[in-house]
């Protein structure tokens, strides 16, 4: 009986507990599940997700472009971009041939003058040196590995202060001809346009793959390894002389020394049209006897020509045939050159015939061929004198004649000195 009572009391308690609990239960936290999305909503959601992922990709490219932005400058004079290659050195498109003076370089923060260091007709690029004035610049970081085919690549360049970029896909690296050089080119899906020239092609991590440069009449992305090689090769004294004055200067060979009856000497081998050397009146076959009063016997003695141009003009003492001339090479200023160009060696302004004798063919292994004359060359002078008639030319080259002759040959934009014997 007692037990029954306990059981009943417990049952009552249980009922009370359950009722009280049910009444006192805390309110539901409003957490109504969203209604199931419809088909069209799902499709829209998928599209938005894709859109978002595209947006975030575009954002990523913009961020990467922003990261490398400080390594890209703009050269307002040339209208091209430039890549901050190394310590104060900017690699850009080739400068105009005569632009020997300083150039303006613009970064995102300001602008400064820069001295051209490396440029020239055979070099598909130019390097200029900037001072410390231009703040906020950062040297590019070269890509550490070759990207996989199909991976993202980003072209970044400047138009004025503003940075522009275009994403594409890396395809491959291949060797191609750029001007007179074999270079490694980075091929991508990007269409490279002249406005991108001087900009960089970066991988997705902001590592520089290539510099965008003109190659003849097309624009190509030249791999960093090739850019580095070109810079090294172009940074020689001879290349600098060619770049600055359009001159190729070399020591006399034994045959040439015999021809000139000299023991040693330095001869102007090539003169490029439109350069300071040509403007000053130098001609191929000229023997440089003295530079600023110092006697010249070996190419090392004219190294001053390859040094960075100073304020002073250089004075050359030149022997041309029997005549000795004084020729002044202007320092940097193109206007100065044009002024002085009228007064080199008095009375030696040549009356060049409208059509110099054109060489149609060269017989292999002939004297001319051995000397390096090529079909298409034009004969300007023979032994420092303009040929008077075809008969005279034919006589000079007759088989019976074995005397060496010094020819002044025009080949494209160049004039060359060639000794035929």
């Amino acid at each position, binding site marked *: 009986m007692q037990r029954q009572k306990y059981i009943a009391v417990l049952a009552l308690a249980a*009922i009370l507990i*359950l009722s009280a609990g049910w009444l006192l239960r805390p309110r539901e936290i409003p957490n109504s599940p969203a209604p199931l999305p419809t088909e069209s909503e799902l499709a829209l959601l998928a599209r938005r997700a894709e859109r978002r992922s595209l947006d975030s990709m575009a954002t990523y490219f913009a961020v990467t472009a922003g990261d490398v932005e400080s390594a890209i400058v703009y050269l307002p004079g040339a209208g091209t971009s430039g890549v901050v290659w190394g310590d104060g050195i900017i690699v850009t498109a080739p400068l105009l041939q005569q632009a020997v003076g300083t150039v303006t370089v613009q970064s995102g923060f300001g602008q400064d003058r820069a001295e051209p260091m490396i440029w020239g007709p055979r070099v598909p690029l130019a390097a200029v040196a900037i001072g410390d004035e231009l703040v906020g610049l950062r040297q590019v970081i070269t890509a550490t590995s070759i990207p996989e085919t199909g991976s993202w690549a980003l072209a970044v360049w400047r138009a004025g202060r503003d940075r522009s970029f275009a994403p594409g896909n890396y395809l491959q690296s291949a060797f191609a001809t750029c001007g007179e050089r074999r270079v490694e080119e980075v091929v991508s899906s990007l269409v490279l346009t002249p406005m991108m020239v001087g900009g960089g092609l970066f991988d997705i991590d902001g590592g520089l793959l290539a510099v965008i440069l003109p190659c003849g009449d097309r624009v190509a992305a030249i791999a960093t390894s090739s850019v580095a090689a070109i810079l090294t090769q172009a940074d020689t004294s001879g290349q600098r002389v060619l770049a600055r004055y359009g001159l190729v200067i070399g020591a006399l060979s034994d045959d040439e020394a015999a021809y000139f009856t000299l023991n040693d000497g330095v001869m102007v081998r090539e003169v490029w049209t439109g350069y300071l050397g040509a403007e000053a009146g130098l001609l191929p076959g000229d023997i440089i006897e003295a530079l600023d009063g110092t006697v010249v016997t070996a190419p090392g003695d004219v190294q001053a020509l390859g040094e960075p141009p100073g304020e002073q003009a250089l004075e050359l003492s030149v022997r041309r045939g029997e005549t000795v001339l004084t020729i002044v090479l202007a320092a940097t200023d193109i206007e100065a050159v044009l002024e002085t160009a009228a007064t080199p060696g008095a009375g030696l302004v040549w009356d060049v015939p409208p059509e110099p004798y054109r060489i149609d063919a060269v017989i292999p292994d002939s004297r001319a061929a051995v000397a390096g004359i090529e079909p298409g060359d034009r004969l300007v002078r023979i032994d420092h004198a303009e040929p008077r008639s075809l008969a005279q030319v034919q006589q000079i080259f007759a088989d019976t004649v074995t005397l060496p002759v010094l020819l002044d040959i025009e080949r494209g934009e160049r004039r060359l000195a060639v000794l035929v014997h």
Partner: protein
Amino acid sequence: MNELTSIGLILLLALLAGHLVKVLRIPEVTGYILAGVALGPSMLGWLSQENLVALGVLSEVALGLILFSVGSVFEFSRFRRLGRQVLLITLVESALAAVVVTGGALWLDQPWPVAVLLGVIATATAPASTLMVIRECDSAGPLTENLLGIIAVNNLLCIMLYGLITAVIDLTIGLEGISTLESLYRAAFWFVWQIIGSAALGYLVGLMLAGWSSQVTESGEILILLAGSILFCVGASRGLNLSPLVASLAVGATMVNLAGRSRQLFDTLSNTDPPFYAMFFVIAGAELDVARIPAMGALGLVYIIGRSSGKFAGAGIATWRLGLDSKVRNFLGFALQAQAGLAIGLTLAVNSRYPQFAPVVTTVVLASAAVFEMVGPTSTRFALVQAGEAGLGKVTRADVLPVEG
């Protein structure tokens, strides 16, 4: 495939797997679970996620039946005899497992709520697979008795601890849009409701069952009565937001103390419930996400090692302190390793309650449950066989109950 085909396939393959693993001296339960793993979405995928959701009801009923059986350990006469030591052992082994796992997780720089939640979940020992192994081994003796008591108390303790811990977490981090006072009330209410409320419901259902059973004699009718009571209990718990686990335990406990013919009732049940259990374990196996095991990482390893060592050490220390038989002392730790249902259930609760901690807790608990549930039953069987208790019982589970008088 449709649900009926699934059920058929589950039963047949469970039987086949059970036969196969017997050769390897591995408990049938493990065979069922492995069959489930193979059929489930994480491997062959014959049982899809939808199938599992649909079969979830069967699984719940089976768990109700199992806990109803486990509840029979709360018989007064037995509890008077074993209660103190069972409580002590459970407290020590659970506390040690919780402390070691929490410490390990904190050491791995987990936020404290994650560490503590993992610690609490680590205390749970799977009642279902443990009970099934006891039945399969026909085991009886001091180890078996203690083990049955421990798995019953252990699960209650785990639910209480979870209630306490979530209350503390809620009060500390606060729930969105709820004042401190309300979140305190909410936490306290949940705690009391889950334990006391569920017990009250179980008591009422058990009372009804005990009273009605004296009027019913035919075994078929007894079965209908039992099945009806347990289904009602599980369903009502769901509806009232109570714990079906605690409620089912309470039904079993009430009945074993009040019904004069409780033994006959449990006998009847044990003759008919194997298909449910087979289904329960196959479904449990299919729900195990074995693919997660490699993803659990260092934290998962710490959880597994911490929980195992905590249970071993706790069981060892407590039984040594109580001066129990060396067989119990040496092998109780092995018998406590299984973990599944409650741990997974608590993970689901963590998922909905603390979404910010859910990824870590879910990965660790589900991955380690896959490990424990495959190794645990074998470990339990090993303990029972080594302690020399296997085969000492009679054929039915009712024999693990003390012989009255």
